[in-house]
C-alpha cells in the first residue's frame, strides 16, 4: 500500500522527558474512514502519543505525515487547523458558557463588516451538529449543567465544527454508563461513515470489538504490533499488552494470613460508588482493580477520611469506627499512598527529609518543638530502608525520578504506626528497576503483618502480588477472585468485558 493511502502516518517517533522515555521509536498508520483502536497498559505511552499528534508536544525524533505530506506542529492550534481533534475523558470546557459558545470559542461566526457575533447562525449550526449526533439538549444550555456524556458529545460537535478529519478519542467511555456508551458507539460509527478517521483509546475490549477494525498495541513506550481486530484473540492481545509470563516477576511469598483487620459493609457515596463490602486480614494483600473511573480511588479516599461516605459501616479490628479526617485515619492505623504522588503525596519544593517526616511530626518533636537531629536521623534511616537513590536527605524531591519519589512516599508511610496500608497505583510512572524494589517493599510489609489494599490497573501487578482481587465497574464490585481463579481473563472479563458483549476466544495457531 503506498503512503498516500494513509490519512496519518507516524514513523520512528521518540519522545523523552527528564528521567523517562515516554515514546521509543513508535510507528503508527491510520487509513481514512477507519476506526483504529490503540491499546496498552497505563504508562505504555498512549497519552504522550496523542499529545504528539495533537501538537502539545513536539517529538524528539521521527516524522509525522498527514495525507502524504510531512507536517510539524508547534502549537495545538496548528494541529487543529490541520484537521486533527482530540476528545478526552475529562472534558476541559467553559462551564459558565453555553454549548454553542463552547463549540465555537476561538472560531466564532462573525458578520463581515461590523464583526458582530452571529448568534442565530451559531445556534443553528450548533443545533444541527447536536441533532446529527443525536443529542437531546438545546445548544443554549450551559455547559456546566450537562452530564459528562453530554459534554463529550459537545466536544465531538466542536471537533466537527472545526472540520476535523481525524478524531482521537481518549478513553471516552471511562466515565460513561452502559447506555451512554451505546450512544457514543453510534455516534462514532456515524463519524466513520462520513469518512472521518478515528483513533480510539480504550481499556474496554467491548469498545474495541464493537467499533474498531484494526488495533495497535504499545507496551513500555514501544510499538508492539498492529492486527486486524477479527484476527487476534483476547488472550494474545493481553500477552501483547503485558509482554511476559506474569509469575516470574514477583516473588510472592506465602504469608500466614492473620485476624481480621478491616471490614467494610455496604459503603456508598452518591455519584461515585455503592454497595462496597469486603474484609482485609493481617498479612493479606487485597487487590482492587477496575477501569479508571470505576470508583476505586474514591473508596480508598473514603477509608482514609478524605471524603465521608453517605452509607455503610467501617469496622477496624472488630470495632465500628467513623473516619473523619486523614489524621484520624492514621490514628486508627490506616495509611494511604495517594494516586497522584506529585500533587497529593509530596511537597515537591521540599527536601526528602522534610517530606518523610511530614505525616508524623509528633515523633520528631517534643511538646511541639522540632528535634532536628532526631528528624534527620529518622529520615535517613527510612530513606535508606526503602532504598531511595539520593546523595543526601537535603536533596529536593522534585529532582528525583518517579521511582525514587514513590519510595519517599513509602518512607513517609513507614514513619507512622499503621496496621492497614492502602496503596493507590504504587508503580504508576515508575521504571522497571524501581518497580521491583517497590514490589519487594510491599511483600516485606505483608510479611511484617500489615494488611494491604493494592489498587492497580496493571494486570501483572495484580496477579503477581495479590492474595485476593476485588474488581470494580461503574462504582460497584463485580467480582471477588481468589488466588486460584486469578487469571487475566477473569479479571478483564469482570472489569472490561460486559456480560453481553462479544468475546473473541479464538486462539491464533502458533
Amino acid at each position, binding site marked *: 500500500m503506498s503512503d498516500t493511502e494513509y490519512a496519518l502516518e507516524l514513523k520512528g517517533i521518540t519522545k523523552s522527558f527528564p528521567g523517562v522515555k515516554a515514546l521509543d521509536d513508535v510507528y503508527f498508520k491510520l487509513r481514512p474512514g477507519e476506526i483504529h483502536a490503540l491499546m496498552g497498559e497505563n504508562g505504555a505511552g498512549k497519552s504522550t502519543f496523542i499529545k504528539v499528534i495533537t501538537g502539545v508536544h513536539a517529538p524528539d525524533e521521527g516524522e509525522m505525515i498527514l495525507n502524504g505530506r510531512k507536517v510539524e506542529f508547534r502549537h495545538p492550534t496548528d494541529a487543529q487547523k490541520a484537521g486533527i481533534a482530540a476528545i478526552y475523558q475529562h472534558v476541559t470546557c467553559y462551564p459558565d458558557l453555553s454549548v454553542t459558545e463552547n463549540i465555537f470559542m476561538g472560531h466564532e461566526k462573525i458578520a463581515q463588516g461590523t464583526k458582530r457575533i452571529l448568534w442565530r447562525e451559531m445556534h443553528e449550526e450548533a443545533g444541527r451538529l447536536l441533532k446529527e449526533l443525536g443529542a437531546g439538549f438545546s445548544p443554549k444550555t450551559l455547559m456546566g449543567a450537562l452530564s459528562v456524556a453530554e459534554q463529550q458529545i459537545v466536544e465531538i460537535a466542536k471537533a466537527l465544527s472545526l472540520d476535523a478529519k481525524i478524531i482521537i478519542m481518549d478513553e471516552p467511555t471511562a466515565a460513561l454508563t452502559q447506555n451512554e456508551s451505546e450512544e457514543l458507539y453510534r455516534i462514532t460509527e456515524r463519524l466513520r461513515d462520513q469518512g472521518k478517521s478515528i483513533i480510539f483509546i480504550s481499556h474496554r475490549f467491548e469498545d474495541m470489538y464493537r467499533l474498531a477494525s484494526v488495533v495497535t498495541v504499545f507496551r513500555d513506550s514501544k510499538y508492539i504490533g498492529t492486527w486486524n481486530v477479527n484476527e487476534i484473540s483476547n488472550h494474545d492481545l493481553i500477552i501483547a499488552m503485558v509482554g511476559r509470563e506474569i509469575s516470574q516477576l514477583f516473588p510472592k511469598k506465602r504469608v500466614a494470613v492473620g485476624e481480621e483487620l478491616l471490614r467494610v459493609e455496604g459503603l456508598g457515596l452518591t455519584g461515585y460508588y455503592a454497595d462496597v463490602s469486603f474484609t482485609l486480614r493481617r498479612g493479606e494483600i487485597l487487590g482492587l482493580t477496575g477501569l479508571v473511573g470505576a470508583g476505586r480511588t474514591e473508596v480508598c479516599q473514603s477509608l482514609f477520611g478524605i471524603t465521608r461516605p453517605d452509607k455503610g459501616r467501617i469496622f477496624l479490628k472488630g470495632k465500628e469506627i467513623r473516619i473523619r479526617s486523614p489524621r484520624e485515619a492514621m490514628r486508627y492505623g490506616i495509611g494511604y499512598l495517594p494516586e497522584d504522588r506529585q500533587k497529593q503525596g509530596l511537597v515537591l519544593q521540599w527536601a526528602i527529609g522534610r517530606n518523610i517526616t*511530614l505525616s508524623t511530626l509528633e515523633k520528631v518533636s517534643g511538646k511541639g518543638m522540632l528535634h532536628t537531629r532526631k528528624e534527620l536521623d529518622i529520615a535517613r534511616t527510612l530513606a535508606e530502608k526503602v532504598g531511595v537513590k539520593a546523595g543526601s536527605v*537535603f536533596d529536593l524531591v522534585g529532582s528525583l525520578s518517579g521511582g525514587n519519589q514513590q519510595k519517599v512516599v513509602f518512607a513517609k508511610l513507614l514513619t507512622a504506626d499503621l496496621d492497614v496500608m492502602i496503596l493507590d497505583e504504587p508503580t504508576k510512572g515508575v521504571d522497571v528497576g524501581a518497580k521491583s524494589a517497590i514490589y519487594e517493599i510491599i511483600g516485606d510489609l505483608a510479611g511484617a503483618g500489615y494488611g494491604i489494599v493494592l489498587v492497580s490497573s496493571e494486570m501483572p501487578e495484580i496477579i503477581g502480588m495479590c492474595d485476593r482481587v476485588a474488581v470494580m465497574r461503574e462504582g460497584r464490585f463485580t467480582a471477588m477472585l481468589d488466588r486460584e481463579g486469578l487469571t487475566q481473563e477473569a479479571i478483564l472479563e469482570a472489569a472490561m468485558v460486559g456480560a453481553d458483549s462479544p468475546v473473541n476466544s479464538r486462539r491464533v495457531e502458533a
Partner: protein
Amino acid sequence: METRTITNRREFSWRSFILQWEWLLVALIAAVFVLNANLSEYFLDSRHLLDATMGFLDKAFIVLPMVFIILMGDIDISVASIVALSSVVMADLYQAGLPMEWAMAVCLAVGSLCGWINGMLIVRFKELSSVIVTLATMIIYRGIAYIILEDQAAGKFPKWFKFLGWEYVGNVPFILVAFAVCAAVFTYLLHKTTFGRKLYAIGNNPTASKFSGVEVDRIKVVVFTLAGLMSAVAALFLTSRMGSSRPNIASGYELEVIAMVVLGGVSTAGGKGRMAGAILAVFLIGYLRYGLGLVNISAQTLLIVLGLLLLFAVAVPRLNAGQRTVGRT
C-alpha cells in the same frame, strides 16, 4: 534491595548564605539610614531612633501573624478594621463604666472573635477566597465600629494606660520590648515547632498536606484568630498612643502590614519566606516613614512611596521566577 548510605549532614555554602533576601533588606535599611541622616540632622540620634519605634511598632504586631497567613497562601485585608473595632469596643465599654483592665481584656477578645469568624468563613466556604471573605468582613467590622461610636471620639483613659504607648522600660520604649517578646515567640513558632512546619507545608501544597494528615482547616482557623488577636494588641498600643479611640483609626494599616510582609521576602504564592525578613522590613519601612516625616514630607507622599514599595517587593521576585497562581483573586 541495595542499601546505600545517605548523608543527613548539610554542606555549608557561602554563596547561598550571601544570596539571601534578608541581606538585601539590611542593605536597604543602611541606605535608608544614610538617606535620612543626610536629610535631617535629628535622625541619627540613638534616643530619637528608639523613640521613633513608638510611632510605627503598633502595626508590627499585626505583621507577625500576617506572615503566617501569607505563607499559607491566603491574605487578610480586614486587620485594620479589627483594630478599629476592638479599640472602639474597649473605649465604649470603659466610658460606660467597665474597669479598664476588663475593657482591655474585652478588646483582645473582640479581636480574636473577629479573626475566628474570618477563619471559620474561609474554612467552611472553600469556594470563597480569603480575599472576598476578608473584604466583606473588613467592611462589616469597621461598619460596626461606626455604629457604636458614630463619628465621636471616646477617650479619657486612666493615666496608666499611657504607659503602653509612651513609657519606657529603662531606656527602651515599652512597645519595643513588647514587640521583641512577641517577635521572639512568633519566630520560634514558625521556625522551631511542628506548627510552623505545617504552615510551610500548607503554603507549598495544601493537598499533599491534607493527605499527610495535616489538619489544614484547624490550622487556618487558628492563624486567622491569631491575626485578630494581634490586631487587638495593636489596637491597645495605638489607642494608648492616641489617647482616644475613633471608628476611623488604623486607616490604611492593611496596606502597610502586607507591604512589610511582602517586602520581607514572603511570597504571595505561599510557602516561602522567613520571619526575620518581615521583622527587618518593619524597621525598614518604619524608619523610612520616620525619616521622611522629619523633613515634613506629607503623609500622602508617604502613601505613594508605600504603594510603590509594595509593588516593587512583589514585582522583583516575579520578574525572576515568572510564575503566578491564576484564578486567585
